[in-house]
């Protein structure tokens, strides 16, 4: 037992945790890349295909109505999850990256002009760097970067210095995927708004760990992926304030997003459909509701308490490994433990842990500028989810000792 959760019983909800890898029971510590899926979600996926697979919104037959209703129910479920004022402010996307691209492309190309400034941070995932670089290149805007300290925290004083009346957009990560740092996003948003800039939060990592409230944050856009919250892959949402989404042109053209099409002129559909061209990822959208229901049943604060316990346990435990240095020691962190060990290449670490059935992520974690800031080429990252245990962390520590002995 850990606080209010029965972890042994939770583990039974995730069939994949019984997999044997290289002759060992799987230890899955790559949750920041993607979380595993509970029965509830797997059953929802097969249930959809077995009982009510149909294309949505257009059909008038029974299956189409049932599928449409489940699809729109998921939208309302995500609205509650983010505490968004309106369900049409929830746009279905393919994931966090897709949502950021939508905003950079549709909002950015419409409302930004040469000389305008966009602010990101040193700890951004490439997904929250490249779309803005592409925009800046096209429009002649200037990209500015908030620096960080050695613990992996944003330098807020420096951020304030970057803000001017030329700042039109701020796009930052809510929680860093490489470091685990929880950024002071409410303060970032308030300061950006004070100079008239709009703010997007990359919520890929935050969404499974933190309680989210877009009204309290007052963010203009929030992008996340469901596969990191025990839901299916290939599906995410973009939240945007209605007045902004209304003012933005469609991002992709096709079916569903139109009101009327003639060869002379097409008029566009209302929100949210204006941004949802083509047949969406219906099955995964439908199943995502069940992932959120699962999280709610366990309780987000219970999950966070368990994950924090694991993080503290692991942070303490790795101290016995000589030459190990934790990368990312922010005061506010989620359950991500990134580290380097003197004289050991992260890839060798990954290969030898894998041989012991332990799945971690090694490399630059799609944050190459951040790695350069720490003067390293990559880290080994163990990231914990609700189904992980201290016993598994003990196995990781044993594994690290073995790797050190083998490479020593």
């Amino acid at each position: 037992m850990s606080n209010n959760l029965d972890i042994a019983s939770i583990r039974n909800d995730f069939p994949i945790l019984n997999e044997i890898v290289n002759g060992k029971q799987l230890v899955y510590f790559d949750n920041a890349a993607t979380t595993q899926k509970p029965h509830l979600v797997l059953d929802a996926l097969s249930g959809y295909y077995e009982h009510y697979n149909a294309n949505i919104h257009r059909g008038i037959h029974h299956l189409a109505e049932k599928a449409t209703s489940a699809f729109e129910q998921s939208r309302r479920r995500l609205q509650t999850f983010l505490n968004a004022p309106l369900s049409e402010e929830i746009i279905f996307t393919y994931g966090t990256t897709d949502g950021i691209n939508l905003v950079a492309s549709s909002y950015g190309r419409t409302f930004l002009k040469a000389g305008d400034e966009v602010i990101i941070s040193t700890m951004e995932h490439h997904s929250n760097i490249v779309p803005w670089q592409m925009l800046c290149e096209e429009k002649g805007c200037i990209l500015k970067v908030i620096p960080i300290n050695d613990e992996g925290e944003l330098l807020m004083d420096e951020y304030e210095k970057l803000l001017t009346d030329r700042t039109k957009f701020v796009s930052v990560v809510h929680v860093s995927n490489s470091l685990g740092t929880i950024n002071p996003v409410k303060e970032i948003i308030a300061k950006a708004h004070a100079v008239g800039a709009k703010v997007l939060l990359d919520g890929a990592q935050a969404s499974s760990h933190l309680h989210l409230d877009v009204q309290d944050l007052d963010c203009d856009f929030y992008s996340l992926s469901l596969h990191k919250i025990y839901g299916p892959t290939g599906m995410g949402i973009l939240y945007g304030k209605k007045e902004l989404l209304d003012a933005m042109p469609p991002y992709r053209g096709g079916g569903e997003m139109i009101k009327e099409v003639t060869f002379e002129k097409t008029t566009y559909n209302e929100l949210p459909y204006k941004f949802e061209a083509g047949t969406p990822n219906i099955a995964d959208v439908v199943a995502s509701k069940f992932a959120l229901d699962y999280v709610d049943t366990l309780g987000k604060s219970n999950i966070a308490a368990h994950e924090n316990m694991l993080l503290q346990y692991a942070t303490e435990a790795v101290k016995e490994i000589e030459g190990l240095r934790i990368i990312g020691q922010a005061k506010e962190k989620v359950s991500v433990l990134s580290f380097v060990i003197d004289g050991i290449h992260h890839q060798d670490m990954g290969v030898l842990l894998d041989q012991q059935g332990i799945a971690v992520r090694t490399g630059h974690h799609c944050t190459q500028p951040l790695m350069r800031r720490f003067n390293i080429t990559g880290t080994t990252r163990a990231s914990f989810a609700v189904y992980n245990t201290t016993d598994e962390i003990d196995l990781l520590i044993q594994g690290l000792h073995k790797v050190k002995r083998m490479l020593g």
Partner: protein
Amino acid sequence: MTINEIQDELISDFELFDDWESKYEYIIDLGKEFPPLEEQFKTEENIIKGCQSRVWLNAYLDGELLKFEADSDAIIVRGLVSMLVKVLSGHTPEEIASANLYFMERVGLHQHLAQTRSNGLASMLKQMKTYGVAYQAKSFNAAS
């Protein structure tokens, strides 16, 4: 020794190991013993970028034989690289271009040639064979 004789010798070396640890310890030892590539050859041109580790490959003709030197910043990849060099280096371009590399699979290391490993090893192997084809064409052109 022919390319296949060297491969068969490696396969019998690996038959001695009955667990993953001794197998990987052997690869790590190979990596440690493999002579490093001289700095002058660690050029942008010779680099084969994987997602996680870097591999450098230098090729040159020694008489009629195509020879390889290589290096990597990760030790296991270095060990694997040393085996590819041992098998392919010092043969004619024709032999290299047409070689069928089966030893990685036979010793249970084929996953390191898979794309997901992102270690540049698969690209290195491809590059070695490309050199074989290129030098084959060069010597053909020179002769005609």
